[in-house]
Structure formats: C-alpha cells, structure tokens
C-alpha cells in the first residue's frame, strides 16, 4: 500500500533486566500495519506479544530499533505528546483489565474523556453509550469488584472505545469471556473495523478468535515467525466481510 502505515516497527527490540541476566522479549521485530487492517497476534505464552503491544501503545519504550505511528517517530515525542497519543489515538485493552478500584464502571469508562477535557455531561453520555455497546448498560454503577471477570473485561473494552480511537490495541480481550460474549465483542470489533475504519490489533490464544482477523502475526521467542491470512482450517468465531464465500458462515455482520 502506498499509504503511510499506522504502525511501522523496524528492528524493534526490547531487552529486560539491564542489571542481571538480560531477557530478550522482542528480537528485531519488523512489522507494518496499515489503516483499516484487522490483525491477530498469536504465539506461545512469553513469546513477547504483550511486550509488543505495550511498545506500540506507548506505555513502554523499546531498547532498540525504531517505531513510527502514522509516520511519526515516537522516540521524538515528548512525554506530554506521548500522553496525548495514548489518550486520543489509541484505545488499549489490557490483559489484566487495569480498572480503577472503588470506582464505578461508568467512571472508569469516563476516565480517558476526563483527560481529553470533555465536559462532565458529555463524558457521562459517551461512557453510557460505550457501556451499552459492550452489553453492560445495566451495570454502570457497579464497582469493579462487584463485576465478574468477563464484565470487568467488557468495562475495559468500553474504556478503550470511548474516545473513538483510530487504533484499537487489545491484549487478549476475550480471554475471560464465554463463547457468547466473545462473539458479541468480536462482532463489535468487526463492526468498528468495517464501518468506522478503526485499525484493530488483537492478541489471542484461540484459533477461532484469530481466524476472525484478516491477518495473523505469530510470535515466537520475541520474533515474528509467521505473518499472513489465517490458516484455512481455523473456523472464525464470527463472520467478517473479508471471509470468502466458501469458508464464511452465512449470517450477516451486525
């Protein structure tokens, strides 16, 4: 594609433990993701998936290589500019939810808007919309410890979506969900991708979840070992427009 890639990683490297024995979590990863792509990141536990996501979500800094988001070299960004990118451009769903304790679901979802300077009224409106989208319309006043793991995960997804980011980074967003809710969330992701042009990068351990994507990137020991369309033998959990007529289930995308 001629367009500037949304994510452009070149020889990206992350080595942990500068003091003791160093752990190479990412080893010269070169990867481009373009606007509108729907990417699944797979790989064994400890293969560097979360590390990669944290780097492109600007939560962490690489120890080597370069990273460009929308053509901008992130190494040149000031801390405040990084915060703005995290706030406006990227929606991040954490592997461990990372919700604020003793803070209602609604207020957790409002949090990114708070730092975007949105008024209280609009914050509440947008947060309610996002929570309804993930099927939690009735539980907005509940604290995280009053919610099940799957419900907490959906709050985290709502929070990632509330600021209408151009890039959705989700680290095992369906890890704690039953198959019905998993399908709901995946449908939502496909809808966001197809109808709103949001670029989705999603880490998953499940083949049928990965199969929903258009492109699967497999990590192994911090390297990309495979990059291409999902294997034909994986059955997608939900249909997407890009599935060929032969392999895709017949039902329509919501």
């Amino acid at each position, binding site marked *: 594609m001629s367009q500037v890639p949304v994510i452009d990683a070149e020889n990206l490297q992350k080595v942990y433990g500068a003091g003791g024995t160093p752990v190479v979590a990412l080893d010269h990863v070169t990867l481009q993701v373009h606007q509108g792509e729907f990417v699944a990141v797979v790989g064994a536990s400890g293969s560097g998936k979360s590390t990669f996501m944290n780097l492109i979500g600007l939560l962490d800094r690489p120890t080597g290589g370069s990273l460009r988001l929308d053509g901008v070299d992130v190494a040149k960004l000031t801390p405040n500019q990084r915060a703005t990118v*995290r706030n406006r451009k990227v929606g991040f769903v954490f592997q461990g939810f990372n919700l604020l304790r003793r803070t209602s679901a609604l207020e957790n979802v409002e949090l*990114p808007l708070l*730092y975007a300077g949105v008024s209280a009224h609009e914050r509440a409106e947008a947060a309610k919309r996002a929570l309804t989208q993930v099927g939690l319309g009735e539980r907005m006043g509940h604290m995280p410890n009053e919610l099940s793991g799957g419900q907490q995960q959906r709050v985290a997804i709502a929070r990632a979506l509330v600021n209408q980011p151009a890039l959705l980074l989700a680290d095992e967003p369906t890890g704690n969900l039953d198959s019905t809710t998993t399908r709901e969330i995946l449908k939502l992701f496909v809808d966001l991708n197809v109808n709103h042009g949001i670029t989705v990068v999603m880490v998953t351990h499940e083949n049928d979840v990965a199969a929903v994507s258009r492109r699967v990137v497999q990590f192994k020991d911090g390297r990309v070992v495979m990059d291409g369309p999902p294997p034909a033998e994986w059955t997608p959990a939900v249909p997407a427009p890009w599935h060929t007529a032969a392999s895709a289930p017949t039902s329509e995308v919501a």
Partner: protein
Amino acid sequence: MNLFTLLRLALRVISRNKARAMLTVLGIVIGVAAVIAMVALGAGAQQNIAKQIASLGSNLIIIIPGTTNIAGVRGGGGSSTTVDVDDIDALRREVKSITHLAPANRQQVQIVAGDANWGTTVQGTTPAFYVVRDWRTDVGTEHSELDEAAHNKVCVLGKTVAAQLFGTDDPIDQWVRIKKVPFRVIGVLSSKGQSPMGQDQDDTVVIPFSVFRQRLAGTQRDQIQVAYAAALDADSSQAAVDEMTAVLRQRHHLRESADDDFSIRNLADMAAASREVADSMTLLLGSIAGVSLLVGGIGIMNTMLVSVTERTREIGIRLAVGAKSRDILVQFLVEAVVLSAFGGAIGVLVGWLVARLLNDATGWVTIFDPTVAALAFLVSGAVGVFFGFWPARRAAQLDPIDALRYE
C-alpha cells in the same frame, strides 16, 4: 480536569480513609487552633491594658519614692520615704510643664456606716487628683481647696464602697466613720474598673489630704507615698519627667553618679512596656505556630507519600489512558491542599471554641479576629502546597508501564 472535578476526586479519596485523614491533619488542627486561641487571648489582654492605661488619666505622670531597678520593681524598705510634702511644694513651684500635681497617701481602714462596715483603702489627696486622674464624681461634688484649708471631714466614695455601705440608697450627706472619725459623704466617683495590676480601683474612699495628714498619717505625716502629675500635653510629658527629676535630685543632694532615690514614669513608658510584652508574645505565638505547622506539614507529606505508593497502579492506569504528568501532579497537590485546608478549618473552629471557653471559664477577655482566622486558614492551605509538592511530583514522574506493573 476542572477544579470541581479535582476537588470531588480529592474529597472522595480522603473520605475513604477518614481515620487516617483525621490523624494526618491533627498537627495542623492543633497549630491553627493554638494560634487562633492565643491571638484572641493576646488581643483581649492588649485591649485590657490599653483601657486600663487610659483609665489612669491622660498625660499622667506618676512619682514614687524609692529606687527602682531596671525591671521597675520598687527597692527595699527604708528607701521609700524619700519624697516629702516640701518636695511636692517645690515641684509645684518650679516645674512649668505640669498643670496639676496631687500627692496621694493611702491606708487600709475599716469604714463604718450605721450597721454596715467595709474594709477599703482611704486615699488622702488634693482636689487636683480628680483632674490628674481624670476621675470625676458621678453623684455629688468633689472636695475643694476650701475643704483642704478648713480640714473639713468630708469624703468621696468609690463606686464599690458606696454600693457596699449604702446599697441602692443615696449616700450623699450620709455619715461614715473612718478610724472613729465621722466624715460626711459629699460625692461618689465614677467607675474606673480594674487597674493594670488587677485591683478594683473603685474600692476606695477619697478624703482631703490635710485631713489624712492630721488624722490618719500618724508619725509619717510628711512622707508622700505617691504623687500624680498631669503634663501640659502628651508632647511635654517627657520634658516634665526630666524637669521633675532634676528638681528632686537637686533637693535630695544626689551626686552625679548616684541613682535616683525616686522614680517618675509617664504613660508613654507604660505603653511601651506593654507593647514590649505584646511583641514578645507575638514572637512566641509565631514560633508555636511555625513549629506546629511544620509538624503538621510533615504529617501531610508522610501521608501523601504513603498514598502515592499505595496508589501506584491507579497512577499507571491514569497515565495509560492519557493523563499527562501535570494532571497527576495537580491531582495529588489538590489532595494535599484539601487535607491541610480541612485541618485549617477545623483548627479555626477549635481555636474559636477554646477562646470562648477560656472567656467563660476564666473571665479573660478574648477577641476573635476573623482576619487572623482567614490568614491561618490560608497558611494551612499553603502548607499543603508546600509539603504536598514533593509526593505529588514523585507521583507525576512515574513511568506508565512501571506504575502499571507495580505490585
């Protein structure tokens, strides 16, 4: 984030741990309360002193026999018989910058009126006394030079004595007995209240100086215990003191090197002395306030540091969803300021209460000053900014991923 959101957030966090908040602000509460209460007391005392000094009469100069040391304490026994009636006559003649001069000798006596009797202080003094002390009669008249010349046994009662002997009856032209000598009551003095030494000035009876010498003074009839003079005006008060000092030193044949065997003080001296007391009190209050606010501030800093550590993950989450480090700084600063201002507000309230209770329990006058209260409140807020800054900056400097991973 706007201020309202920040305040609401801070209040919520603080209210989650009320016991800790209370303990944290205790230092500030005590500091501010102490300042408020003591300033109220100090202001009350100041007002009292000012009132009492004013009650002595304007441009008043007091002459006391005997040496004084630096602290103003009167010297030993025999030294207090150094001023006599001739000295008073000489001062009257020679010192031009005074308008009036009244010797006053006093004695403790029992005074009897019919069935009632009362122990009080009799003062023998001249009619100039009423002018110099600015102490006039409410009822009846003062005694005159004629009474002095004729040795008339008349008396003017202080308010307290009049009330003790006659209650609500009119005492004028009634008879009282002092040392078995009958005196006719010709007047009642207006009320003066307490002296700077705390005595009831109205517990007194004034009789002519000539009669005092004749009937009460005994062998000490020429000695003067105290004399009151009035300067022409406030400006000439010091000149009057100097002139009187010169006259008395010459009459007492004091050598250049010898100390005065009398002391002469004017109101300005007394006012300066009381101001000195007030100044040292302010200094003391200031240091108490400073120390307790310092301790309170350190308490807030400690609590905020603990809070930042406890909430590291929260900070990580906020940073991850787009909080700038300034947002985190402001959030924790506001929390510290809310804490300390809360302590300050309670402190003002407690201080005001203590001042009132002191007033009720001891009768000391206390004056609550809203300006001081507002100032103390503001200072407590400033303490929050000052001591909250370092913990807040630590929070703001956290790295998102480190904070998120914090266990």
